[in-house]
């Protein structure tokens, strides 16, 4: 760190430097004590046994067990990202509509999906269709249900057997991730457009553009660049949330660590640590991308909007207007 005054303390003088050195020494000792306690406890339970770590040096463990899990995680994240961005774009723009009968229902949908836990949505998609579909199949809507499943939802592995619709873990996970993150992205898009100076749309209207043109040609391009960092950080959240698939036995990276490798080689803790390192690596590179984008966009003067980042990666909760939170 450079020697400059900071909000909380001056550039240290000779006495402060001496004191800081002592305090550094004390914190080193405390830190080492904590590390030693952890190592001692791990050693006490024989967690440093080479047999526990040896599987991770073998190619077959990676190619047969861990990498397929990673592939499933990335696949779910990729599909859900694309769908969530679509959902976010549609509902974000719908909330900005001039017509109340578009704006109000879109707002209700977004607020609903934002205020309930993601896991509950995943459970809905996973457990409800087999219970509900037989009744629908018997009703006048049965034909419609079959057409939808056979023509569209089969892409996600959804199946219909004699009217009973079953949803695989993958599709349930993607459904939940899309609905939840799509709603958050809708708010990001809305906040991005609202954050632009009013003069932008006034100028656009004054040269004779209609609402459609103002949105498409003037507001959205500026808003999208300003929102890019917020969108990327939301995608990190989405990637992290794929781990919820573990609970409905989706065979993702977490499943590979805790249900396959760990129990097979009796090295649960080692497997968990390896899996965490992979997750942290992927997410940190995505977060770094978000930071880089933000720095780049700050230099870029071609947009009138400042970058919208949900404060510290936490999207504004339902019940709080994003504008209130942005104001500082």
């Amino acid at each position, binding site marked *: 760190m450079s020697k400059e005054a900071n909000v*909380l*303390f001056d550039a240290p003088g000779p006495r402060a430097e001496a004191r800081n050195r002592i305090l550094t020494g004390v914190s080193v000792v405390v830190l080492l004590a904590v590390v030693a306690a952890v190592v001692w406890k791990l050693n006490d339970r024989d*967690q440093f046994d080479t047999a526990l770590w040896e599987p991770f040096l073998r190619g077959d463990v990676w190619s047969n067990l861990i990498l397929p899990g990673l592939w499933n995680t990335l696949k779910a994240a990729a599909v859900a990202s694309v769908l969530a961005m679509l959902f976010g774009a549609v509902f974000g723009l719908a909330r900005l509509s001039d017509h109340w009968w578009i704006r109000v229902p879109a707002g209700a949908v977004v607020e609903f999906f934002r205020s309930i836990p993601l896991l509950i949505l995943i*459970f809905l998609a996973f457990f409800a269709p087999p*219970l*509900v579909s037989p009744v629908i199949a018997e009703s006048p809507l049965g034909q419609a249900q079959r057409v939808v499943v056979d023509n569209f939802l089969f892409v996600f592995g959804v199946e219909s057997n004699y009217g009973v619709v079953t949803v695989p873990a993958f599709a349930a996970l993607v459904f939940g991730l899309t609905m939840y993150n799509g709603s958050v992205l809708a708010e990001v898009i809305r906040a991005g457009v609202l954050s632009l100076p009013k003069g932008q749309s006034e100028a656009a209207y004054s040269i004779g553009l209609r609402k459609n043109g103002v949105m498409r040609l003037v507001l959205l391009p500026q808003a999208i660049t300003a929102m890019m960092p917020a969108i990327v950080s939301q995608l990190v959240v989405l990637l992290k949330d794929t781990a*919820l698939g573990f609970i409905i036995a989706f065979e993702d990276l977490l499943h590979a660590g805790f249900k396959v490798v760990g129990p097979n080689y009796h090295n649960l803790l080692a497997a968990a640590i390896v899996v965490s390192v992979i997750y942290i690596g992927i997410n940190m590179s995505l977060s770094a991308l978000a930071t880089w984008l933000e720095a780049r966009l700050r230099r870029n003067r071609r947009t009138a909007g400042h970058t919208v980042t949900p404060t510290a990666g*936490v999207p504004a*909760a339902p019940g709080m207007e994003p504008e209130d939170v942005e104001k500082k």
Partner: protein
Amino acid sequence: MEDLLGLLDFGPVFENGDRILEGFWGTIRLALMSALLSMVIGTIAVSFRVAPIPLLRVVGTVYVNVVRNTPLTLVLLLCSLGISTTLQLKFSDQNTVDAYWWAIIGLSFYTGAFICEVLRSGINTVPLGQAEAARSIGLTFTQSLRMIILPQAFRTVIAPLGSTLIAMIKNTTVVMAAGYAEAALAMYELFDDPNNQPPAIPLFLTIAAGFMVLTLPTGFFFGWLAKRMAVAR
């Protein structure tokens, strides 16, 4: 058509009302305790991150970056399966009590990182002059942090802090992976029980309404508090 309306029959959900209420009671207990603990962890972490000692800053930064990039499910499984089961570090011989405390530790450890970031953004909004004034009247680092900076920082970040706590309330559902009984587990068990399957849609709507009852008033409360406590600058 009558069959379709039968899908919306809430009767069987009320028959299982006890189980659902019990689940939400678990959620509330978990959320209150974790809110307290994560505020403590977040405050300690943020004082590390702004400390004059570089080593503490590094510790704070590593904690925040590692935890924020780890899935919560993984954190909770590490606590329950990793630390409690494999390392045999237990709070209590009673399984439910042990699961409760490990769930709180995992959840608070995770939420604390987010609270730390929110508080840090709050500290950044405090004008430099405030800190300079504090130093000029002879306050030390700890004193100026405690009496001048943090009180103002807390007041500017009440709204995002509320969002973090609401996210935490929703995150309590993930705790079912760590084996503590709360609302999501109640929903899972009711769905998964082949002998007694309540209609799916009413059950979903009930659980969703339960969470909205918990999260929406919290949101409005924090929104109101943020306006009330706003620092005029």
